[in-house]
C-alpha cells in the first residue's frame, strides 16, 4: 500500500507514531498533521479495508516527446509491481515482495536491487506503511510552515525504520499531500527527486491524486491517473518475470 500511497504521496493514518516531534514549538505536531491528512483522505478504516489496489494512468515527458501508459498493482502484505510502457522505448517494470526487489527494462536488463535502492523498494512495498505505525516510522518531524506548489504547506521529515527519509509537504488548509522531496537511489547514484501532486478526486472511500509531476535532473515527467481500483488484483499479477526468477538462487 505504501508504494501506491507514497507514490500518490498520501500520508496515511498516524497510528501509534513511534516518535513524532515538532522542530519548532509553534508548529503542529507531525503526528497531528499526519492524522488529519489521513482523515482528509478518507480515514484509516477505509485504508485498512483494502486488500489490493490497481492504479492506471498515462505518462508523458512533453519536452522530450515521450509518452506511454502506467499501471501499478499492490497487495498485502508487501507486494508491488509497476509497469510503464513507453512508445518507441519498451516496457519498464519493477517490483518487490517485501524481501527482494527487482527491475527489468530494455536498457538495463534484468536486475535485483541491492543496497539503499533495495531498502527503499522494500520500504515502499509495505502495504500498511501509510498507517505510519511504529514498525514503520522511526521519526516524524514538522520542520516548517512554508510554500509548496504555490500553496501554504507544512513541511515534514519522515524517517522510516528501513532508513528511508522523505520530506513531505501537506496542504496547510486541507492537509492533503502536495508533494515530497527525496533522494532516490539507483545504480547510477543518488538523484534528488521532487514529486508534486494534485487534482484530488474520490475513488471509492478514498480521496486520491490524479495528477503527479516528478522532476529530477532538470527533467519532468507527468503522470495522469485515470483509475484507482480496489481488491481487483489477482495473485498472478505479482508473478516474477522469467528473467528475474533466473536471478534468484
Amino acid at each position, binding site marked *: 500500500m505504501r*508504494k501506491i500511497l507514497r*507514490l500518490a504521496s498520501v500520508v496515511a493514518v498516524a497510528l501509534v507514531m513511534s516518535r513524532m516531534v515538532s522542530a519548532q514549538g509553534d508548529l503542529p505536531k507531525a503526528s497531528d498533521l499526519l492524522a488529519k491528512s489521513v482523515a482528509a483522505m478518507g480515514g484509516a478504516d477505509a485504508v485498512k479495508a483494502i486488500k489490493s489496489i490497481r492504479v492506471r494512468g498515462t*505518462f508523458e*515527458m*512533453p*519536452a*522530450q*516527446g*515521450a509518452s506511454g501508459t*502506467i499501471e*501499478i498493482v499492490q497487495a498485502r502484505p508487501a507486494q508491488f509491481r*509497476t509497469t*510503464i510502457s*513507453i*512508445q*518507441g*522505448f*519498451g516496457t*519498464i517494470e*519493477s517490483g518487490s515482495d517485501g524481501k527482494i526487489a527487482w*527491475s527489468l*527494462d*530494455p*536498457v*538495463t*536488463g*534484468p*536486475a535485483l536491487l541491492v543496497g539503499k*535502492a533495495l531498502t*527503499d*523498494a522494500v520500504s*515502499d512495498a509495505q502495504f500498511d506503511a501509510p498507517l505510519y505505525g511504529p514498525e514503520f516510522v522511526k521519526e516524524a518531524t514538522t520542520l516548517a510552515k512554508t510554500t509548496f506548489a504555490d500553496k501554504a504547506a507544512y513541511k515534514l521529515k519522515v524517517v522510516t525504520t528501513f532508513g528511508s527519509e522523505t520530506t513531505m509537504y501537506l496542504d496547510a488548509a486541507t492537509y492533503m499531500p502536495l508533494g515530497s522531496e*527525496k533522494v*532516490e537511489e*539507483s*545504480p*547510477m*547514484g*543518488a*538523484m*534528488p*527527486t521532487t514529486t508534486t501532486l494534485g487534482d484530488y478526486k474520490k475513488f471509492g472511500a478514498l480521496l486520491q491524486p490524479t495528477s503527479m509531476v*516528478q522532476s*529530477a*535532473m*532538470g*527533467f519532468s*515527467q507527468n*503522470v495522469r491517473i485515470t483509475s484507482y481500483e480496489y481488491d481487483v488484483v489477482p495473485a498472478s499479477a505479482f508473478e516474477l518475470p*522469467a*528473467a*528475474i*526468477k*533466473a*536471478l534468484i538462487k
Partner: protein
Amino acid sequence: MKLALTTFVASVLALATLSAHPPQSSVGLALFDEVWSIVNDSYYDPTFGGLSWTAVRDDLRPKAAAARTEDDARAVVVEMLARLKRSHFALLASGGSADDEMVLKGEANVGADVRVAGGEIVVTHVSPLGGSSTKGLAPGQRIVSIDGRSMAPRPGELPLMTWRRVNAAMHGWTGSIASVVVRNVDGNTLTLPVPRVAPAGELVQFSNLPPIRVNVEQRAFKTPAGRSVGVIGFNIWMAQIAAPVERAIDAFRSADGLIFDLRGNPGGLALMINSIAGHILDTPDTMGTMRTRQVPQLKFVVNPRRSTMDGRSVSPFAGPVAVIVDELSASATECFAGGLQDLGRVRVFGRTSMGQALPASTKRLANGDVLEYAIGDFVTSKGRSLEGAGVVPDEAQPLSIAALAAGRDQSIEAALAWIDRSRPTIK
C-alpha cells in the same frame, strides 16, 4: 515509480549525434532567448569552461533581433551554440532543413557505406541485403557523382559534412534509381544505375528523434588459427537492440571470441552501454561517470547479465572481446568502447572515433523546432574525457583503398588475429 524515473531520465540522455540543419520557420528573438536559457540552465559546467555565456548572448542577441528571415534567426542560434565548441548541440528545424543537399528524400538507399578519405568518397561496405540492386558497387570504389551532382569534397568542407551530403544523395524513395558514377582502383570510371532499396531493421520513433531504422547483425567468423568468433554489429543504441543482441550473444556464448563492430554507429541511449557491457563483464564495474548541473556525479555501472529474457541462468561471455570503431562512431558508442577499453575488458581496433561523447537530451521548443543539448560530460573510469579526443584504437587500421578493393576488412582481420593471440579469459 522512482525506478521508472531514474531509468527513463537516464535513458533519454546521450542521444545520437544529430545533424544540425539551418532552420526555416519564423522564430526571431523568442527562439534565441529560449535556446540561450536552456543552455544557461543545463550546461554541465556552470563556468562554461571560461566562456562568458552572458557575453555570448549580449554579442549575438542584436544580430538575432536584426534577422530579416526565419533562417537568418536560426542561423544566429546555430552560431551561438557553436561558440560552446562542444558536440551534441544542434537545432533541428520543425519544417526540415533548408539545406536541400542535407535532406534525406526517403529512407531507401543504394545499400553502400562510404567514408571520406584522402579527398575522396570511398565505398567501404556494400550491404548484402541490397542484392542485385547493389550489383556493380564494390568496396574500394570512389564515388564521383550521384544523379549528376559531384560528390567531391568542397574547399573548406569538413569531412563529416561531406559524408552527410553524400549520404543524403544516396538516399531516396524506394525503387528510385540512383545514377552513381564510380571510379575503380584501376582508374576506370563506371556509371551504375543503382535502385534504392528500403533498409533492413525495425522502424522506431522515440522521443524527439526522427524515425530510425534499428538494425542488429551477427556474423560468424573463423580466426586464422580456426577459432570461432562472433561478430555483432548494430547501427544505433536504442532499446530495440536489447533482444537481438542478447540472441546474438547467446548464439556465440561458446565462441572463442567476440567482436563488436560499431563502425558508423552514431550513439543513442546512453544507459544501454551498461546493459550491453553486462554481456561481457561479470562484475558491476563503473565504465565511466558523468556530471550534470543538478547531480555532481552519475555512474555508468555495468549490469552483469546472469539471466536471459526467457529465464535461463547464464554467465557473461568471458573470452576476448574486440570493439571496432571508426571516424563515424560517436556518442554512446564512444562511451562503450572507451569505457571498456579503460577497464581493460576490450581491445579497440579501427580508426579514432568522432570525439562527440557528451550525454545530451532533446527538447521541443515553442516554435516546434527541436534542440539537442548536452547536459553532462562523460569521463571513463580512468578519468579520461572522450569529447574532442575520441576513442583511440589500441591497434589502428588506416583506411586502405587497395585492401577494400581486394575484399579485405583490415580491422576484422586484426581483431581476429588478436583473438588468436589472446587467452580466452576475462580481465
